[in-house]
């Protein structure tokens, strides 16, 4: 089961993205936010630092995720195993 705290943190970070003006929800599609692989580098770095998460190369592939929830789930997996 996904840690709601992680999802909230992901949404909070995405909401600070300069081009994101809409409300970000768990089912918001990544493609609708205009994110690219460079965004992923920052987002995952945030959790590497704050949660000591270790990410694999494939985690940095944007095609791995459809929604914000997918992204949070992957981060949660890397933090909690």
């Amino acid at each position, binding site marked *: 089961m996904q840690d709601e705290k992680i999802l909230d943190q992901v949404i909070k970070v995405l909401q*600070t*993205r*300069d*081009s994101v003006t809409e409300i970000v929800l768990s089912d918001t599609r990544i493609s609708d936010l205009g994110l690219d692989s*460079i*965004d992923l*580098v*920052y987002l995952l*770095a945030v959790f590497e*630092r704050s949660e000591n998460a270790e990410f694999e190369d494939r985690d940095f592939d944007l095609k791995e995720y459809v929604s914000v929830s997918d992204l949070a789930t992957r981060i949660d997996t890397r933090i909690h195993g």
Partner: protein
Amino acid sequence: MGDVERSLVLDPTRSLGWDEGPLDGLSCLLRCVEAVLFSQGLSQDEVANALSFPLDISGLRRKPSTFLGGHLAWHNEVDGQEHWKILVDKIESGQPVVLMPDRFYWPGDEFEGRRHFLDHMVLAIGHDGTELEVLDTDAPASDGFRRRLQVTDELIRSACRFATVHFEPVADRQNLLLDQLAIPSVSWISVDLPSLHFFSDRWLASGLEGPMARAFHVLILGEIQPSLFLSSIALRPLNPRVASAMGTAAVSARKLGLALLATHRYSGLDPEDSTPYNAVQPLMKYLIDSLQDVVRISKSELGENSFIAPTGEGPSRLWYRVGAMRDWCFDDFVAPPRW
């Protein structure tokens, strides 16, 4: 559009290291030069050799814009209209021009009308009086990375810095690569490592504010990553272990540079806010560790006595260099106020 060199293209399938994006391996500037060299018939290996340059983190030893196979000749003005005629004469005579526009005036740019940032380069390849045609790594791939821009007063003003490309075939390859690339790079890295530690420690202690972070990404993606990446290709036939260490360090540099680029998007409107960049500071460690490996492996493979012992410039040198780059690329005083 007259006198355009049609073989000038940005082609990810032919480019060096262009996998996920144009900043894999090279910078926007070097993508422009790479396109020129490919159009002149150079192979990938020849381009890697020609574009290679030793890594000088201090910025005091290598002459700017010089490479093993040539150099760029820059024309710099505060206002592009001062040398617009010179620029278009060159393009119309078939000479491609690397253009570093003032993004305040650059049409469609995210900083248009807001900030005088100068950190992106395009290759101007055509001009017919009403339109300027450029190759731009930021243009859509579906358009062949080409843009055709209306020539307006603003566009002309944006053209404040441009360079012409001057390269010759690299001869005497093996000795050149050792004496002018591997030896100086490793020697300089070894004495510049303390300045990377100083930068990292100061960033950790005091944070990194926006313009300084932008200048650092320019250094990382504009010089550090490309030097290491190109060296990893050029030195592969000479010593695969040294080349591999350079390649690993290039990946570390790319990761840090892209993370800085990404953080700009999340840093908000306050340029003094240093907190967003704290998230990516730990990536400095990977870069420093990988550069230490470059030095250790190179000295083991090529012999400790092969390396020169330049004088270090003090641990604060990199911090001050990045500060100077901030003033050159991200200072609102680089262009006069609009009238």
